[in-house]
């Protein structure tokens, strides 16, 4: 079921209250994860029915995304894994799991605060999550092309061919920093719902100037005892974005203007739970690494310490008696909007 009565009731309760950010965050995360996991299942069902699902790694990927089972060794004879496959087959057999073809994904609506949104309005969902201090994010490949298509009739008279629906999506919890000076970053710490059209072995890719670094391929590789480097994947994908900026194939100056604000938001989210200065030091290092790859473009931007100092002086982040830093934006009792 796309959304259960319990999930709907929890969202509705928070929409009426809007004074309890932690509860609102939890309700929204639950709703988004449930909906995208269900979509992933429906798409797997279609791929299975169409006879396209011959890669065991797609099943492995789905199992890992849904369960987050870090102890699993990749053994397809594992009872828990077999149970997952059996449950799936049962849902298909009894008709509760209706297969969803890729082309229909663009018509799906997602329930978040304030109503149901087109799936390509992932930015709306992500803004709600960010406002509530969540690390969860939705990444729908090709969302911007689908959004632009929605303007047909309003601005575009005729002659525009509809964009193909890509069909790939990833939903999961991100690492602390979500922005590069030239691109948005989806640096997944843990993927929780993945379209079967995302190749299990793809460790990273770019989409419309966004950098996606994945977590599941590394977990799948680990089962085989392979080594990996997330940083090298990140740097490789950064290379694509920087090249796109250099050859003028993508305009990024607006992103550059928003970059320090994004980092500011990231620091707030990171200090939602009190953090030591040593923990923030790791963020500062990552920040410096990103800034160093495009030094000319961001020469005038504040450094990490400058952004943190501003947050402290505005008292958005406060220093606790034990020296840890805490952002109070996401505490119960503060109002929020959607």
């Amino acid at each position, binding site marked *: 079921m796309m959304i259960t009565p319990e999930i709907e009731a929890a969202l509705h309760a928070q929409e009426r209250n809007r004074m309890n950010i932690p509860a609102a965050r939890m309700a929204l995360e639950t709703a988004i994860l449930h909906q995208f996991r269900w979509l992933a299942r429906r798409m797997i069902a279609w791929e299975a029915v169409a006879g396209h699902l011959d890669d065991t790694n797609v099943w492995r990927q789905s199992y890992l995304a849904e369960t987050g089972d870090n102890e699993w060794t990749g053994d397809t004879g594992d009872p828990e894994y077999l149970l997952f496959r059996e449950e799936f087959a049962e849902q298909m057999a009894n008709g509760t799991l209706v297969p969803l073809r890729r082309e229909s994904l663009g018509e799906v609506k997602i329930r978040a605060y304030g109503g149901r949104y087109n799936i390509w309005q992932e*930015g*709306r969902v992500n803004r709600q999550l960010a406002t509530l201090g969540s690390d969860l994010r939705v990444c729908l490949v090709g969302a911007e092309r689908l959004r632009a298509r*929605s303007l047909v009739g309003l601005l575009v008279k005729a002659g525009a061919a509809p964009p193909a629906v890509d069909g790939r999506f990833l939903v999961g919890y991100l690492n602390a920093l979500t*922005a590069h000076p030239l691109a948005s970053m989806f640096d997944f710490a843990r993927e929780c719902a993945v379209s079967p059209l995302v190749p299990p072995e793809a460790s990273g890719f770019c989409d419309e100037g966004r950098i996606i670094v994945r977590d599941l391929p590394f977990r799948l590789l680990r089962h085989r005892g392979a080594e990996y480097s997330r940083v090298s994947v990140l740097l490789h994908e950064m290379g694509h974005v920087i090249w796109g900026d250099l050859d003028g194939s993508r305009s990024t100056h607006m992103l550059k203007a928003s970059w320090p*604000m994004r980092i500011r938001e990231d620091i707030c989210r990171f200090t939602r739970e009190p953090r030591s200065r040593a923990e923030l030091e790791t963020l500062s290092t990552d920040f410096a690494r990103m800034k160093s790859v495009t030094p*000319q473009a961001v020469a005038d931007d504040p450094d990490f310490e400058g952004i943190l100092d501003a*947050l402290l002086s505005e008292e958005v982040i406060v220093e606790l008696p034990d020296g840890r830093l805490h952002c109070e934006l996401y505490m119960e009792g503060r109002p929020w909007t959607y």
Partner: protein
Amino acid sequence: MGLGDKIRSLFSRKREPEPPSADEFRTALQQTIRLSQIDLERRRYAEVAKRLEPLVAAFEGRSFDAETERITVSARSTLAAALFELHRVEEAMDILEGCVATARRLESREGLITALHELALCYRNQGMQAEAIAACEESAGLAAIDGEDVMPLYTLAIFRFEEERFEEARDLLEHARDAYENRHELVPLGRVFNELFLVTYALNDPVRAIEYARKSIELKLQIGDQAGAQTTIRNLMVIRAQHPELFPDDDDLSN
């Protein structure tokens, strides 16, 4: 002159520096445009003009291959945008009309979107409202097809607002909101919330208007735009004076 002398003279001859290759020229030009666009976004208009004016003057009377000419359109549009902000509107208009003609000839969609948008702003400044709207509509329509630049969409919404076509303005702003949210561009997103606040208030929907105002304040505070947040708070105060029933007694707008 013996052979040895000939060889010596060949090595000692001062050689002219080789002119840059077409690729090197294009790359350097794109770098310059890129830096200028960042300066534009940061309102350093005089620096953009200083950097690009001699460059654009040097294009005069020269012929380029199609790819390079496309890039020169971008350089000229960027310069025109800076000149517009420096109140040299007629100069900007001249440049942009040339850019539009070149971009049409080259069938350069990206160049046309930008030039038409900048030209619309010039026309509006000169009181040529009909021409401004036509240029902006064409720019926004072209941009919409590929999900390109969102600015024409936003500008068209402002035009509709000025024409008191509030519902159309709201619909366009909602699209701009979707685009900026998808792209995580927080600075322009804050501006869109502001405009949505004003448009919905003009549509006699104060409840929604207040929601947008709150959203605008929330975002601006989150990104550290204290001055912008204060402006929206002041606007909200005006609405509170007119509609006290919409605000709880203990509503602290600055919270």
